[in-house]
């Protein structure tokens, strides 16, 4: 028995409400179109992508030395550097820092890494209250849901639902669903939070080996509000977030927001190099499977990801199945190639949640071969024995049929006979091919039969 439903089952539930699926689909496509417009304003966009891709290849091939260089420079800047082998160690490190300072309440800006590590649950079990300060993250936190998108955490929610949540938790008037009013209510509520929390946790977009500084990009300014007001700032990053030199930001910052939302750049791109006078700045470098992925030749390129979400916005499967159907912290095409590395059995369904159309690879700002990797993961998963049993049995039956001409002809005949004489035998819910499809009209004869009748005779 599986612990969670697989992508297909979760997508089916999401698809029950068709107008809502259409709305979700159109909203994300709108963002994809904004990305296209923004990309087209840059004359040599493709050269920019290629350059970013090559820098990332260099990073992966030299990660050991860059990590050492970054650590040395960050320490020289006064940053306290920690290393975490896995999610559990990451959570423990963060909790120990908070304990040392006697902190029971923390404000957090967006960090997909802490979602991956389930930090909020861990801290809450240890008596620490965490408030997410990104508006979208706060909304899903109030709804007790995980984010459904790495850049747009509550893209699956209607404004009326957000209005209800805010009415319940923040005291906005019942039925109020105006985004302007709701955002203002969140601004007031979170300003109070920023002003009263002594510890702030943030993610990291880029960490620069050459200077030991790190960069955080937000539109709301929530990372800065948290970090510059708190006594203790904890920044958490995956080890793959390193870039070699400061000047390389000139490449990545041109790509990130244009690919993510179609903005020319995020409102704030903040470079943290040294702690504020008299305050502590901690940085946690997390592996959690990344060094293993680095060793998988076919999949290591997934570590080039800069978390823009463009592959999700363009994916026909993501748009019509929703982020939650991927049951992983990072959803969509990129999530589907990262998740099997973390737990192949649990995430065996994800590489199959794709049409392999390749649109993800085409929009990726760092040129990750996402759809090729999806295809390769399928092969690994089948070989390792984690494939869906129904699919495996079907494939085995097909292999037998194709291997023997007699079986093949017999199966074809039987199939055509059934479709013609007892169509309900195939046109029913038991047959997955019949779902949302009409079965094709059965041909009178197979090509083999036709050939025997028409050509073979003439040639004789």
């Amino acid at each position: 028995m599986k612990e969670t439903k697989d992508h297909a089952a979760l997508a089916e539930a999401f698809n029950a409400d068709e107008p809502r699926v259409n709305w979700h689909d159109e909203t994300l496509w709108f963002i994809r179109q904004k990305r296209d417009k923004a990309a087209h304003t840059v004359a040599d966009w493709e050269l920019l992508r290629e350059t970013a891709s090559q820098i990332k290849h260099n990073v992966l091939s030299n990660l050991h030395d860059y990590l050492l260089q970054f650590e040395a420079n960050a320490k020289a800047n006064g940053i306290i550097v920690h290393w975490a082998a896995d999610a559990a160690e990451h959570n423990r490190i963060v909790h120990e820092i908070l304990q040392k300072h006697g902190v029971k309440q923390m404000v957090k800006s967006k960090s997909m890494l802490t979602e991956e590590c389930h930090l909020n649950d861990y801290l809450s079990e240890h008596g620490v209250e965490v408030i997410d300060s990104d508006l979208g993250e706060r909304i899903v936190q109030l709804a007790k849901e995980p984010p459904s998108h790495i850049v747009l955490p509550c893209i699956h929610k209607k404004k009326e639902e957000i209005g209800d949540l805010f009415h319940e938790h923040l005291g906005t008037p019942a039925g109020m669903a105006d985004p302007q009013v709701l955002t203002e209510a969140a601004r007031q509520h979170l300003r109070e939070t920023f002003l009263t929390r002594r510890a702030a946790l943030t993610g990291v977009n880029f960490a620069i080996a050459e200077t030991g500084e790190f960069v955080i990009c937000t539109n709301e300014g929530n990372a800065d509000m948290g970090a510059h007001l708190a006594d203790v700032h904890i920044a958490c990053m995956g080890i793959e977030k390193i870039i070699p030199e400061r000047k390389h930001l000139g490449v990545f910052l041109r790509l990130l927001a244009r690919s993510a939302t179609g903005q020319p750049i995020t409102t704030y791109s903040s470079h943290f190099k040294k702690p504020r006078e008299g305050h502590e700045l901690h940085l946690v470098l997390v592996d959690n499977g990344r060094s293993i992925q680095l060793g998988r030749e076919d999949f290591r390129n997934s570590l080039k990801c800069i978390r823009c979400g463009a592959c999700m916005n363009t994916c026909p499967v993501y748009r019509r199945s929703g982020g939650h159907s991927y049951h992983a912290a990072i959803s969509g095409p990129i999530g589907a190639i990262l998740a099997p590395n973390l737990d192949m059995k649990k995430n065996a369904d994800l590489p199959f949640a794709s049409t392999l159309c390749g649109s993800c690879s085409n929009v990726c700002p760092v040129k990750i071969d996402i759809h090729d990797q999806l295809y390769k993961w399928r092969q690994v998963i089948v070989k390792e024995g984690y494939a869906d049993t129904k699919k495996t049995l079907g494939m085995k039956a097909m292999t037998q049929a194709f291997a023997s001409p007699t079986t093949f002809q017999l199966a074809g005949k039987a199939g055509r006979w059934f479709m013609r004489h007892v169509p309900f035998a195939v046109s029913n819910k038991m047959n997955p091919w019949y779902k949302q499809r009409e079965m094709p009209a059965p041909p009178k004869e197979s090509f083999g039969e036709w050939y025997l009748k028409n050509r073979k005779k003439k040639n004789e």
Partner: protein
Amino acid sequence: MSSRDSILAAVARNQPEHIPLPEIPAFFSGETDVLEKFTSVAVSIGSKVFRVKDLEEVKQVLLKEYSGARRIVSAFPELADIGEVYIAPATDPHTLANVDLAVLPAQLGVAENGALWVTDVQLPMRVLPFICQYLALVVPQKNIVPLMQQAYDVIGAQEYGFGTFIAGPSKTADIEQSLVLGAHGARTLSVFLLE
């Protein structure tokens, strides 16, 4: 073995053969009038842009635009008659929560995205441009560069504890993709392009 050592050992073991770092190409900038480009992009992301001769003109615009501002903080001695111009280094940043308007110098601006570069050399307190309700940044016209590449050429190996690009007012579109200005940071950004 510590986690640090085991992570580093695993990375060394698993990283592919060395791939050289590419040269950053000279990207196409195209725009002949960077001020024009800067202005149009900055306006498109929600900034207000004013071309001014001197700080006196900045003052006049601010008095008109932000007539309701009660607490004004600036880093310009020339603006001493409209607000505070000194924040003591040991000040608790929380005490800036009631700042209505902050007026700060920016080192440079970027035409392609309307972003302005500010470091703690310009900032009396790191939190100031975020915690204020309204923000004004003043940048010399000659310091507008076409692309981010040129911006980082200028920044070079600059020493700072904190530096940030600010592009427009704080914003969010998290609720059904409806753009709302004034999320957690400044509700508006006025940019003064100084002659």
